């Protein structure tokens, strides 16, 4: 029987009458349900850093969400105005510390565009090599922690095994494992050391096999599928409007990769496929990154082949007291997380007048509330993992 109002409900309840299908509105009125506000983070391990979320819950469903950021704000843009162009490079490492080379790359490309510096081809190949290794390492860390959050512990250990190999390669070439500061305006710091190419080739041989190991654990795993398929969906139009870029938007079927659409460095000479899947959900984003790792491995191989045959200089002559012309430029590269752009305003002095970093994670985080609405609390973890944020880059 249907219940009309609260009074009737209470009467029936007192009599002990068993109710049929009770209308939800009346139930809600009778029990005085209200939104429950839950604070998540900033010390929550699944938020990948110091991200704070305020969730409004109706039962266990999310009805609203507010994202609070800024806990890691270091004022990089202000600092940039007080450093010379060369001195700013180490600060870019600290933005996305998972893929420091990619962060360097965006900055040097912007400065070179401003000052019209021609970079030796060998340096460009080394840059692409390093940036792609960074991409693999970033995606490996993403897969490891994302799977760990959802409950697949083993993948974490496997991924870190391969990531260790990449970090060893970085250490060999630059001396640093995370914050490498390897790129310079006009080239890279130094040529690749002896034995690097062989070791890197070894990695490229092993890596595709190892991706099969991850696939055995995840690709058709029923638990993985039920935690990721149809979770945190976002359409292509909504995603673009919210500023979503990189692998996250490619998971919504948008074929947009800056390496292909606006080629920089030597990407136009390299053969690779852009990974696009149209599931719009967490699983599609997993597929995109999984494929990107393999494609990056292909790019690394091509770079190694070229580098073996073509010795040469790795750095253009750039004066120590470096004064670019007056003007403003914006240059963007495809970082592992999405479009990374630097906007530099120069007044002709040794320091940038204004430097603005367009961090992909900052923009990607904006679509998190849109993705999570209507899902369960546990799915927020999957959604955060799927857009792959690094708080160093969000807060700058």
């Amino acid at each position, binding site marked *: 029987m249907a219940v009309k109002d609260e009074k009737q409900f209470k009467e029936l309840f007192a009599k002990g009458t068993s109710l049929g299908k009770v209308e939800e509105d009346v139930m809600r009125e009778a029990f005085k349900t209200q939104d429950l506000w839950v604070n998540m983070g900033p010390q929550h391990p699944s938020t990948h850093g110091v991200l704070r979320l305020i969730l409004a819950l109706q039962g266990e469903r999310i009805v609203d969400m507010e994202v609070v950021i800024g806990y890691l704000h270091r004022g990089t843009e202000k600092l940039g105005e007080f450093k010379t162009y060369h001195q700013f490079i180490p600060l870019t490492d600290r933005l996305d510390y998972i893929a420091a080379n990619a962060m360097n790359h965006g900055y040097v490309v912007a400065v070179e565009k401003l000052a019209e510096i021609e970079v030796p081809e060998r340096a460009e190949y080394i840059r692409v090599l390093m940036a792609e290794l960074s991409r693999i390492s970033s995606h490996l860390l993403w897969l490891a922690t994302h799977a760990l959050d959802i409950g697949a512990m083993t993948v974490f250990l496997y991924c870190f095994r391969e990531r260790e190999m990449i970090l060893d390669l970085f250490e060999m070439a630059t001396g640093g494992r995370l914050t490498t500061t390897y790129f310079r305006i006009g080239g890279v710091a130094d040529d690749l050391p002896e034995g690097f190419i062989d070791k890197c080739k070894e990695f490229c041989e092993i890596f595709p096999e190892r991706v099969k190991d991850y696939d055995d654990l995840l690709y058709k795993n029923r638990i993985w599928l039920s935690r990721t398929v149809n979770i945190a969906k976002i359409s292509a139009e909504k995603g673009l409007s919210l500023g979503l870029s990189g692998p996250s938007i490619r998971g919504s079927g948008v074929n947009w990769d800056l390496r292909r659409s606006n080629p920089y460095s030597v990407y136009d000479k390299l053969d690779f496929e852009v990974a696009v899947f149209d599931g719009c959900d967490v699983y599609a984003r997993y597929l995109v990154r999984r494929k990107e790792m393999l494609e990056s491995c292909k790019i690394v191989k091509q770079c190694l082949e070229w580098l073996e045959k073509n010795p040469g200089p790795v750095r253009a002559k750039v004066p120590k007291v470096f004064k670019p012309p007056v003007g403003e430029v914006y240059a*963007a590269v495809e970082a592992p997380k999405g*479009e990374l752009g630097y906007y530099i305003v120069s007044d002709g002095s040794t320091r940038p007048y204004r430097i603005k970093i367009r961090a992909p994670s900052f923009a990607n985080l904006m679509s998190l509330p849109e993705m999570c609405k209507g899902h369960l609390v546990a799915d927020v973890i999957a959604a955060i993992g799927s857009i792959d944020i690094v708080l160093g880059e969000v*807060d700058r």
Partner: protein
Amino acid sequence: MAEEKDRKVKAEPAKEAVEEKEEAVDFDQFVEVRKIKERFPEAIEDLKYFRGELTIRVKKDFLIDVCKLLRDDEDTRYNFLTEVIGVHYPDREKPFEVVYHLYSVPFAKRVRLKVWLAEDEEVESVCCVWDSANWYERETYDMFGIRFANHPDLRRILLPEDWEGFPLRKDYPLEGPPGYREKWLKEHLPNYNKL
């Protein structure tokens, strides 16, 4: 572009060369300029072409119209707002510059829009055109104190809500105003020095 690449960098900034290049550009070759001129003849204040990037300075009253035109027109389709940036020029009559970088995913090209603002002027928020403007404009407000009219939620985003001053303005010292750090610590972390 090929000629520009061939030239190598010198220690001295090549000012004259750049300016010559600017004058030679015929702006009617850009479809964006043609479209704006056609629909809103009075909107454009200034045009610049530097390092292959087109900059259009528009009057602030026309900003929303121009943005909607560039987003919806079949020949431009700038469907992605890359960022909203503030720049502070304290010596100018209108000291604030708001820069919008638009990207067109179908055509893979960029354009830059600019608006100049006086100290107490507001500019209309572009949140109604691209949702992503929400956080970009909040950040610009946070760092420069530029206010965006009709913004759904204009609050500080990176700094604490009770922060005083706008750090990316040129008159803001690098390490904050003298004594501000001590004052802030005293208010928020009274036991800081006792640890």
